């Protein structure tokens, strides 16, 4: 049973003018798999390193099981960490790499042997225990790094972009393995990545960060369906959300520049009007899969359609991605590949505004 509380944590490096992490507050529950995600330089790695004790906390408190550990040395925090470049000791065999921490903690020889073999079985590297890291592939090295964390039996795992150095295919399979490992060991895990797919597929909860600040915390479903602001909307999801600059006029939104207008569904309209956006500018965000080309949709919602030109059409198998253009505005639609369209074709698409998101163009916060 372990709980982690980050209370108003700030980080400022000695020679920096600005804070790298600002007012970071988060409670992490026992056995939870939390993913910090954000673009590079958003402070996610800094935060995980503060939790590990590799960086000082400038302000705020870090609590492990209710105890403030700001000034504890890394080794006393009982945390295991997996690094992006694996950080294996190059001169030691896989066995020695995994047993290094145990030896230092004065475990008995038999105990060490049992734990290492046990961990090697879990990560599937039993035959490689005598090898040096240089004789292993990238994926195997990352497994050793995981094994090194497993043998410690530490209550908290920190993973700092552990899959970034692997090739795309390996990344997908290791992603599943780490998720499986978490289900099996039930260790509280904090995982840092810049890859939103990793975040979406692995996390119990996602923490989205930008410029050192938390943008939103929630389950993958929550942050996908209800982004708190424009940044979250644009960052989560692949391909990214499409954005349109529009003005709310009566019951329609208009884009005068690109010359189209759409009818706003009633429920949504009420919210927008009640929040005082009548006649005001808005940012409409709509995910590629909420843009439809099927005749049924277009027939039912004739007032939610745009006439566009398809610039590029990518067939991905079951789906096609259409890079469309209306006026100067470009957007992507993800449609069933049965509706595959040749590039250059003119096309009427329907925007499902019930699933659309409206953001304030100034504050970038979600309105609806």
């Amino acid at each position, binding site marked *: 049973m372990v709980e982690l509380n980050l209370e108003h944590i700030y980080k400022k490096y000695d020679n920096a003018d600005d804070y790298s992490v600002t007012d970071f507050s988060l409670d992490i529950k026992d056995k939870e798999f939390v993913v910090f995600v954000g673009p590079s330089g958003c402070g996610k790695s800094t935060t995980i390193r503060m939790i*590990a*004790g*590799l960086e000082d906390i400038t302000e705020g408190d870090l609590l492990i099981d209710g105890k403030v550990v700001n000034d504890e*040395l*890394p*080794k006393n925090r009982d*945390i*295991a*960490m997996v*690094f*992006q*470049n694996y*950080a*294996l*000791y*190059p*001169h030691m065999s896989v066995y020695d790499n995994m047993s*290094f*921490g145990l030896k*230092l*903690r004065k475990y008995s020889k038999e105990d060490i042997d049992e734990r290492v073999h046990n961990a090697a079985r879990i990560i599937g590297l039993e035959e490689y225990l005598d090898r040096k890291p240089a004789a292993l592939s990238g994926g195997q090295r990352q497994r050793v790094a995981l094994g*090194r964390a497993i043998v*410690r039996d530490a209550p908290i795992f920190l993973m700092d972009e552990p899959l970034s150095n692997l090739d795309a295919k390996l990344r997908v399979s290791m992603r599943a393995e780490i998720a499986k490992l978490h289900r099996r060991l039930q260790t509280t895990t904090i995982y840092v990545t810049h890859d939103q797919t990793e975040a979406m597929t692995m996390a119990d909860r996602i923490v989205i960060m930008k410029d050192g600040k938390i943008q939103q915390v929630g389950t993958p479903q929550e942050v996908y369906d209800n982004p708190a602001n424009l940044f979250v909307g644009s960052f989560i999801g692949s391909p990214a959300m499409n954005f349109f600059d529009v003005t709310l006029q009566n019951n329609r939104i208009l884009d005068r520049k690109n010359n189209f207008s759409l009818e706003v569904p009633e429920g949504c309209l009420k919210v927008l009007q009640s929040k005082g956006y009548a006649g005001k500018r808005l940012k409409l965000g709509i995910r590629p899969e909420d843009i439809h080309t099927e005749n049924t949709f277009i027939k039912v919602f004739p007032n939610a359609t745009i006439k566009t030109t398809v610039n590029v059409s990518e067939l991905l198998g079951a789906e096609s991605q259409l890079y469309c253009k209306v006026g100067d505005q470009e957007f992507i639609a993800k449609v069933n590949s049965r509706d595959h369209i040749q590039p250059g074709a003119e096309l009427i698409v329907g925007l499902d505004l019930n699933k659309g998101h409206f953001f304030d163009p100034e504050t970038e916060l979600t309105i609806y």
Partner: protein
Amino acid sequence: MSNSLLKSQQNSRFIVSVILAVFGFIMILPFLWMFLSSFKTNAEIVQNTRSFFPKQWTLENYRNLFHSGFTLYLRNTLIITFFSFVGMLFNAMAGYGFAKFKFKGRGVLFIMVLATMMIPGQVTMIPVYLILNQMHLTNTLTGIILPGLVGAFSIFLFRQFISNISDSILEAARLDGASEWYMFWHIILPISKPVLAVQGILTFIGGWNAFLWPLILANDEKYYTLSVGLQLLQGQHTTDYGIQMAGSSFMVIPIIIIFVIFQKYILQGFNIQGDK
């Protein structure tokens, strides 16, 4: 690859090998002659009808050598060499410090260390002698050892190499519970093996061949080193070539053996410098 091309390559390789072998033989000839002569009697060496191989093999020269105080010189040399190795560890620690620890004045300090490399040793010899004299360390082994304990080039080499070790390895070790001291011995040093090998050989050669500084600092024969002692063998009136050959062989052979064993590492070490 066509057959003729392969053949011409083989030919050129053969020619290169022959040329190298000839030059190698010419190079090694004096050493061989020195070594063989050390088993000749002095009379045989000075004979007009000089022979390459000893007519009569004798160990007399080596026996005389060690009766003439060479044992003592050997002891001194070994002590100096041993402490040079201790010094090498200090250099490794300094290099580690410069490479991996952030502290105030690190840059300035490192530049100062490098700056000492630009001053020739001969320039500092007299000031260092005067300092040691004030410390009453002239004519002592301590005085001979002390100035050689640290070397800027060695620190520089260690720093360059250790800089390349990923920080996250050290961080992982810290999380594993290693102390800074433990990390130095169990992670930094083993990874730095190539530099250690180069530095070790240079240190050994330096210690083993220590000549000028011990000669200046030691007045007393009991602090002489092998190379200083070797020079003593050259008598003023009579010259015993046999004993000189034995002394020279005794000095050169260990270095040649070590070089042959470790030449792989020496080349590797110089490659490290080349990578920079």
